[in-house]
């Protein structure tokens, strides 16, 4: 592929028109006549790649070649379609046919029946679970119906490894517009009016953040993109970087122009090799076409971007810790002020924004403040991407307007709870957040509302839990995470969380004292008030939130030594029901402790003193003769 330099904004607009044909089959009214007759788009996000989507691409290509159709059909790897539950996904355009759970072996049928034969591969179409009706178009699938895609607008549409396709989606026009028609303060004013707020957790207004960084005079300033998506269960930033890396590059350049910075850094987790790879390609191509580098579009503005790698530390999502990590130090946070806007990376004014925030910026500048303001609620404008995971039918990435209710997300989009079980809670905000219960399912999601009901927006991870999840155990899980990730610098976080964890372990072991809940609450309060950074200040939230909403579950563990979810091993005992046991010996043969005894064809007995509660007998028994009490 040849990437020619674009020397001015008018030249960019010309190039945009000339490249429209690339998306001719995929976007309405793209204008120019496309080269191919069909585009087959295969999801190349991490989830689908893990399920062999690269092999699907390969097989599709060889099937097409075998039929001599190379000039008519092209196969492309795109970013994530979001519907991870049904991955790998293949979309055939312009027919707009959406195939789900495709395997490499299906390539032949797709080419033979669909491309050549003109029919559909019925078995690969999405089937609506209730009516058992096959659905052909993605927009008719309930999962997509309520979504509005701004940050994810290009994911699953363009080939992220070809910057020309990004240009064909109006790429870099927002930057061109800023450089040729607006001053830095005008860009900032525009962002302030748009009402865009940080999508990484705190929800701080982006325009105000930029304004603060502009205010400080300095010969050198930095823009940092925080791509250290550490919240377990959240993967929207990764998907954006894998599916539409150029939008982040463009937004960083815009931010650089606004605050007066000429160097940007993307701090990315080393755990995301595919996102790193795509970013490297995007940066290289952007330099070639002159969207990064010196004198961008003949405006006199210089901006370049470098990647910096994380190394597995959750606390580095905190901006001061992140900055220390880029400097090559231990990623320990420091107190604010001074804020990074005044003294950040190498003591220079620095502006740190999250990936999803950046991805919104070019769209807002292209489409205008009014358009963006028409989406969302009064104080929370636009959309938010959520990563739905856990015990839900449709695991995946969803982007909905702010103000959508949890019920809509979980039941309409998410398809309800897996296995027809009962919804128990949804955890938002990761290890810093809290859980939301049935009573609050109809709360419209905004920054303020989530905080008011004891959780937080966070980066947008939503972990759905059902009746089989023990909430004490979940709180313990989050604390284990915090313990692992606490940098150890301040005492409340280092020792306080350890003590909280010990108390929770006593509860799940059935060894807690009556007043443990009061002790937990008091210590949690101290940790929140006295910790140095956001990690410690929010680490007790999962404990406090589960104690508030599931008090009875705690009491049950402490007083009755019982875990009704059947999770806490030390509170369980396995028994063999003598009227159901036929003496098949399956349990005794599989028991690793050899603590099940009995004669063939006679009821068996478990020696409770030796039982380690591994549950193997329960799994192996075919006669439901083993009971957990």
């Amino acid at each position, binding site marked *: 592929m040849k990437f020619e330099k674009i020397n001015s904004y008018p030249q960019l607009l010309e190039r945009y028109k000339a490249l429209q044909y690339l998306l001719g089959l995929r976007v309405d009214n793209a204008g120019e006549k496309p080269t191919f007759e069909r585009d087959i788009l295969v999801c190349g996000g991490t*989830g689908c790649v893990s399920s062999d989507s690269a092999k699907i691409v390969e097989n599709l290509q060889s099937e097409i070649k075998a039929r001599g159709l190379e000039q008519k059909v092209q196969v492309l790897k795109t970013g994530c379609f979001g519907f991870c539950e049904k991955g790998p996904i293949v979309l055939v355009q312009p027919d707009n046919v959406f195939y789900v759970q495709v395997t490499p072996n299906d390539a032949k049928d797709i080419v033979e029946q669909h491309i050549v034969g003109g029919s559909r591969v019925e078995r690969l179409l999405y089937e609506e679970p209730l009516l058992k009706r096959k659905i052909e178009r993605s927009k008719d699938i309930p999962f997509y119906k309520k979504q509005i895609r701004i940050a994810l607008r290009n994911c699953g549409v363009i080939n992220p490894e070809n910057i020309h396709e990004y240009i064909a989606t109006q790429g870099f026009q927002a930057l061109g517009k800023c450089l040729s028609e607006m001053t830095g303060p005008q860009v900032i004013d525009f962002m302030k009016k748009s009402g865009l707020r940080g999508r990484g957790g705190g929800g701080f207004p982006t325009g105000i953040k930029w304004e603060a960084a502009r205010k400080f005079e300095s010969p050198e300033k930095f823009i940092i993109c925080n791509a250290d998506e550490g919240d377990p*269960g959240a993967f929207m930033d990764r998907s954006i970087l894998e599916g539409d890396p150029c939008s982040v590059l463009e937004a960083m350049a815009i931010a650089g122009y606004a605050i007066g910075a000429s160097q940007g850094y993307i701090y990315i987790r080393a755990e995301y090799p595919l996102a790193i790879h795509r970013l490297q390609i995007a940066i290289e191509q952007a330099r070639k076409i002159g969207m990064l580098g010196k004198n961008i579009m003949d405006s006199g503005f210089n901006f370049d971007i470098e990647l910096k790698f994380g*190394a*597995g*530390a959750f606390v580095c999502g905190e901006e001061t810790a992140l900055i220390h990590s880029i400097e090559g130090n231990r990623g320990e946070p420091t107190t604010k002020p001074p804020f990074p806007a005044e003294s950040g990376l*190498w003591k220079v004014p620095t502006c740190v924004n999250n990936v999803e925030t950046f991805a919104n910026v070019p769209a807002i500048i292209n489409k205008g403040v009014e358009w963006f303001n028409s989406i969302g609620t009064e104080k929370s404008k636009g959309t938010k991407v959520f990563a739905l995971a856990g*015990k839900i039918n449709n*695991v995946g990435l969803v982007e909905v307007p702010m103000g959508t209710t949890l019920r809509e997300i979980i039941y309409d989009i998410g398809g309800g709870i897996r296995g027809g079980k009962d919804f128990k809670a949804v955890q938002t905000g990761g290890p810093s957040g809290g859980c939301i219960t049935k009573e609050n399912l109809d709360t419209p999601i905004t920054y303020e509302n989530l905080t008011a009901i004891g959780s937080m927006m966070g980066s947008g991870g939503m972990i759905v*839990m059902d009746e089989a999840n023990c909430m004490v155990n979940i709180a313990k899980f989050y604390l284990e995470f915090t313990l692992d990730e606490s940098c150890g610098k301040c005492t409340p976080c280092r020792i306080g969380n350890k003590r909280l964890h010990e108390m929770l372990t006593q509860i799940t072991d059935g060894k807690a004292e009556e007043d443990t809940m009061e002790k937990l609450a008091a210590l949690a309060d101290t940790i929140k008030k006295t910790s140095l950074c956001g990690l410690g200040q929010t680490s007790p939230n999962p404990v406090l939130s589960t104690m508030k909403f599931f008090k009875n579950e705690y009491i049950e563990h402490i007083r009755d030594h019982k875990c009704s979810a059947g999770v806490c091993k030390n509170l369980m005992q396995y028994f063999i029901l003598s009227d159901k046991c036929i003496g098949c010996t399956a349990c005794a043969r599989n028991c*690793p402790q050899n603590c099940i005894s009995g004669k063939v064809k006679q009821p068996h007995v478990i020696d409770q003193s030796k039982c380690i509660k591994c549950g193997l007998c329960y799994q192996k028994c075919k006669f439901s003769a083993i009971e957990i009490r």
Partner: protein
Amino acid sequence: MENNAAICTADGAAKEMFDKLDQFIDSLGTDSNSPRRKGDLIRILHQAQHIFGYLPEEVQIHVARKLKIHHSEVSGVISFYNYFTTEPRGKHNISICLGTACFVKGADKILEEFEKELGIKAGQVTEDMEFSIDVVRCIGACGLAPVITIGEKVFGKLTPGGEVKKILSQYKSEVK
């Protein structure tokens, strides 16, 4: 190269590895007198771990000298970040995702089964250096929960009871 003596005598290929690392460091064009030279440290350590498989003291000292910083600074950074290890890992490193999405779907039971099958705990390596187990926090493939990776290969939607044994047997037969 006196600081590399220990590794050199243990393994003839070591010099080649150090050369490779030096080439990488030189390619970065870091100014060894710049106060910002430490900014490349994490990237260098990633590369070093990629080359050596882990970060033994000899490698740490080597990197420290190259960047003209103290060994303690290098060691401090390594001990802070989970990604870096000072112990060798097994030929097949099993990473078990314990992110929230995997956890609520029973990833802890999958971990237990691997630990039981291999007779080692998370963070350890088997005596024959064939397998090691690591716990990771979310690899972002939540649609496949519970998910593990062995080397580059991903195994998703695992269920307790039998499946773990089957996966391991693929690798064990490969060993023999």
